[in-house]
């Protein structure tokens, strides 16, 4: 995907070129491209006057940001303690098998990215799976296929 300078600049302009808005700007860029392209960070660094290393430091610190291209759909499996005891590892393994990738990777066709999270704070409805910010409660190995199918369909 080509990085358009104007698009990045408009993201920055939204926050009046303020340095303290770095995280918000990065979030907007991530929203646009699904990840943080290298060129985009270069533009942000030059426009805001923040050293590139500081931006990269912030971008790599938070798990919400990704420097690698991610799939169109993001599937996040909670593997926190409560979800773990209710069978989250099995669900994660099923996702890995179905998508043929490991947690943290993206499928070759760029459709799905699989990630894990330690806890979402809603342990009562565990095991939890989030797919494109839709929360699926009390998931099981059997429901994995349905979730994937639903989001693949949305695409078309």
């Amino acid at each position, binding site marked *: 995907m080509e990085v358009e300078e104007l698009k990045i600049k408009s993201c920055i302009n939204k926050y009046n070129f303020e340095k303290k808005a770095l995280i918000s700007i990065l979030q907007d860029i991530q929203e646009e491209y699904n990840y943080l392209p*290298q060129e985009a*960070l270069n533009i942000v660094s030059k426009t805001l006057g923040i*050293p*590139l*290393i*500081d*931006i*990269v*430091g912030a971008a*790599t*610190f938070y798990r919400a940001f990704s*420097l690698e291209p991610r799939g169109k759909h993001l599937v996040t499996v909670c593997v926190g303690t409560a979800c773990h005891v209710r069978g989250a590892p099995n669900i994660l393994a099923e996702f890995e098998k179905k998508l043929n990738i490991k947690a943290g990777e993206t499928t070759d066709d760029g459709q799905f990215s699989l990630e894990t999270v330690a806890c979402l704070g809603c342990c009562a409805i565990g095991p939890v799976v989030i797919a494109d910010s839709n929360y699926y409660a009390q998931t099981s190995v059997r429901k994995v296929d349905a979730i994937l199918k639903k989001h693949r369909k949305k695409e078309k």
Partner: protein
Amino acid sequence: MIILKINGLEVKAEEGWTILETAKFYGIEIPTLCYNEGLSAYGGCRLCLVEIGEGPKAKLASSCTYPAEEGLVVRTDTRRVIETRRMMIELMLSLAPNSKIIQDLASKFGVTKVRFKVRNEECILCGLCVRMCREQMDGKAIGFQNRGHKRKISTPFDIKSEECRLCGGCMYICPACQLKCQGPEADTTVCNACLTMDPTCLDYYDELQCWMYNAGRCGTCVREKPEKSDSKEQAENSK
């Protein structure tokens, strides 16, 4: 003037001094690794830990970042401090066992074994190179990335940074990746050659300058003078 107590000794510190600076001024030794006079204090290596306060409320604090306060009671050589210090050296050894500076610290503080998995990362994340680049070289080419066990120091995207002028300041100041311990190959991670070799004096002094003179000298330095070239080598090893 701030009056505080270090090891029972009443000392006066100027406004804005840290405990470490005060101790240095009075000649009280506190070991440091990530501290450098020309750079801002970071408090990352935890070697300069001292015990602050008395009784059960005493806490450990890094003296390089703790400001001297009125009436503060500081102890630099309690058992708790020394044990914590040893633990820190052990942890650092497991990260960068090839570092001469850390091996020397291990010998000096009697760390003879490493109980942790040796990771050979040649970096202890002391941040000296980052601060050197930023504060002295005005570079801002390297910095910390990621977090937790994945934390590392690198340039953006791990490629040559536009800001880097190849000054070499980061390598000059690094305690872990540059100076390789020249001691004999040890089976264990800890070389401790300085402990077992003659002279056992870690800092090499001649007869007149021996700091143990009044306290019953160890005598290793005057026992048998080795060959001149040898003594130079040994002096280097023991430094």
